[in-house]
């Protein structure tokens, strides 16, 4: 009985947490839609999320493209279809790998930083100070961060796509024996703009997830420096899990889009 009621209490607290998170997200999004618009802060956050993530995204992108070319070659060379390497890697990148890997990399860098920064502002009463000055903290702090990540994660995913294909091209054309013409022709034949579009939609949702969870965890931090540490870790873990689970469901929803 005790175990049952403890489980019940646990479930209730999770549901409550989800409810509070959704409330936070709606408040922040509404704050972003209403004036005053925080353009300066938005640009600063876009720089932080986008420009400062470029290097890690490019490095992961190029090596992902390269390793997938090597792996695909192992399969395709058995029936002499090496020329398909480019197409299959590009498909996997645009539809799946680029959105997910970009989001996970950015989550590690940006989601954690947002939780830590806002968490520190919470425990040092800076968020209370904003409130006390009649400034909506959701609008001032959360909205620009969420908007910046929702815009910049797709942009970074695009970069990942491009460098990934370049990495793949390097392995397929320079190291294996695929001709450049065949490499390109197969990609054009097999890959649609819809594949790209689906990946972009996914990555925008991932950006929304990782930033809103990071901000939410920051806003709800309590318990000093230790609390900030805890908020940071949980934000990254929760976002990571949400990115991968939502990916599955979005793939199901988006599938009809590119079958036809």
């Amino acid at each position: 009985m005790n175990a049952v009621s403890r489980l019940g209490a646990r479930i209730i607290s999770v549901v409550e947490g989800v409810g509070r998170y959704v409330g936070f997200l709606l408040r922040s999004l509404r704050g972003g839609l209403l004036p005053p618009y925080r353009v300066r802060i938005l640009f600063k956050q876009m720089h932080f999320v986008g420009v400062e993530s470029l290097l890690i995204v490019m490095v992961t992108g190029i090596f992902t493209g390269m390793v997938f070319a090597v792996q695909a070659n192992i399969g395709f060379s058995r029936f002499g279809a090496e020329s398909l390497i480019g197409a299959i890697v590009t498909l996997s990148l645009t539809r799946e790998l680029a959105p997910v890997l970009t989001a996970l990399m950015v989550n590690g860098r940006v989601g954690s930083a947002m939780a830590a920064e806002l968490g520190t502002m919470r425990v040092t009463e800076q968020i209370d100070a904003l409130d006390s000055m009649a400034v909506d903290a959701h609008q001032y702090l959360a909205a620009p961060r969420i908007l910046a990540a929702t815009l910049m994660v797709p942009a970074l995913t695009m970069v990942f796509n491009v460098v990934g294909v370049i990495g793949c091209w390097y392995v397929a054309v320079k190291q294996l024996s695929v001709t450049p013409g065949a490499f390109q022709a197969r990609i054009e034949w097999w890959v649609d703009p819809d594949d790209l579009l689906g990946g972009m939609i996914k990555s925008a949702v991932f950006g929304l997830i990782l930033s809103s969870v990071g901000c939410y965890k920051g806003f709800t931090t309590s318990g000093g420096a230790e609390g900030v540490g805890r908020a940071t870790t949980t934000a990254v873990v929760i976002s990571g899990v949400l990115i991968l689970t939502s990916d599955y469901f979005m793939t199901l929803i988006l599938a009809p889009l590119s079958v036809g």
Partner: protein
Amino acid sequence: MKKVGIELEGLQKRFGAQEVLRGVSLEIPAGEVTVIIGRSGTGKSVLLKHVMGLMRPDAGIIRVSGQDITRLGDADLRRERFRFGMVFQNAALFDSMNVYDNVAFPLREHSKLSEPQICLRVEAMLASVGLKDAGKKQANELSGGMRKRVGVARAMVRGPEFLLYDEPTTGLDPIMTAQIDALIRDTQDANPGLTSLVISHDMAATFRIADKIAMLHEGRVILEGTAETFRETDDPRVRQFVEGRLEGPIQ
């Protein structure tokens, strides 16, 4: 009869099992300096946060100019806060900004002043807290006392109707303490419409600046009145606190 600025009635607040406020009732007269004293941990800061609507009470009423703010929604509460300025106990400066931007922040958010006008106002405010040349310093490079003073400047800069100070002078040197106390008193005397609420540990300063004093003890107001009331009371708990003695009913 004096006009009431802020009125607290039966204010209760608990954190988990800990009852912090157990029915605080207090009238804070408009146009005066009211000082709340009490031991560390009795809930003075918690009380101040209730007055600003930063915390919601479990029970009780907070009236600001007659309006109960515990029932207000977020938007109305935010409008209400236009009228307040608050000095946080640990200053709560924005550490991503420098001193100047911290003090200019409320003006940039809520006034139509041009940047040169803001500059004049901020410079004057910084000078009055003795930080004339510190504008360019980053908030996280300041000493504790400097942070306090920036906090005071930031709270005062818009000229609010209510100024709440949470231990504005704790941790300052004696000269600076006297200067901030004088600033609190002078600001009050220069603005008849202003209502100041100060939390303090410093009895000498309290007697210097207060029009009214209230002592918070174990979640209730145990004595309120003028400096005279506090000098003459026989309540042993108040006597012990005012005289700063080790032995007595408060342990």
